[in-house]
C-alpha cells in the first residue's frame, strides 16, 4: 500500500480537478480545475515510466545503470505544451466573456445558465 502513494496522489489530484470543474460556478476556477487535471495526467505518465533505481535516460560520463522509460517522458512534454495552449485560449475566452457580460460567474451569464 505504501509503495503505491504516487498512484493514490494521481487519483486524489484528478478527483480534485474533476470536482472543481463540475461544482464551481466561476469560469476562472473551472479553467484552474482543468489545469489541475493536466497536472494529474503528467504525474500519471511519469509514474508509469519509473523503474526502481533507474537513472534519467541520458548518456553521461557517470556510471550508468538501468534507465527509466523515455517514451512517456516525451509524451509528458507534449502534454505540457498542449495544456499551455488550451489554457491560454480558454483564458482569452474568459476575458472576452468578462468584457461582454461584466462577470465570469455562470449564473450571471444568460447563455451559460443551465
Amino acid at each position: 500500500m505504501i509503495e503505491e502513494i504516487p498512484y493514490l496522489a494521481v487519483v486524489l489530484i484528478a478527483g480534485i480537478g474533476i470536482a472543481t470543474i463540475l461544482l464551481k460556478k466561476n469560469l476562472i476556477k473551472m479553467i484552474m480545475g482543468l489545469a489541475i487535471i493536466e497536472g494529474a495526467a503528467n504525474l500519471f505518465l511519469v509514474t508509469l515510466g519509473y523503474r526502481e533505481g533507474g537513472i534519467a535516460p541520458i548518456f553521461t560520463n557517470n556510471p550508468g545503470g538501468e534507465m527509466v522509460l523515455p517514451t512517456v517522458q516525451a509524451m509528458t512534454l507534449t502534454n505540457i505544451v498542449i495544456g499551455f495552449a488550451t489554457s491560454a485560449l480558454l483564458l482569452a475566452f474568459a476575458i472576452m466573456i468578462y468584457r461582454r457580460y461584466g462577470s465570469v460567474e455562470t449564473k450571471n451569464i444568460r447563455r451559460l445558465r443551465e
Partner: protein
Amino acid sequence: MKRKLSIIITILMIGMLGVIVSGLTFGDPVDHPMDRYFIENSQEESGANNVVTAVLFDYRGFDTLGEAAVLFTAALGASLIFRKRRDD
C-alpha cells in the same frame, strides 16, 4: 438536483480511476520492446546522448510537428481574439 448529479459523477469518475490504478505497481513498469529499442539504439541512430530528445525529434518527429502547429495556432487565436477593432 444538478449539484447532486455533479457529485455522483465525480465519485463515479474517481472510482473508475481507482479501479484502473489499483492494478499497477510503482517502480516496475511494463517491459515494452519499444522502450528497450529506444534506449539501446537511439545513440547510434540519431547521434544524440539524450534519449528523450532523440524520441521527440527523431522517432516521433511528426508528433513534435503537430505540437508546434498547435502552439502556433493557439498564439494566432489569442492574438486574433484581442485584435484592435474599429468600432469599439
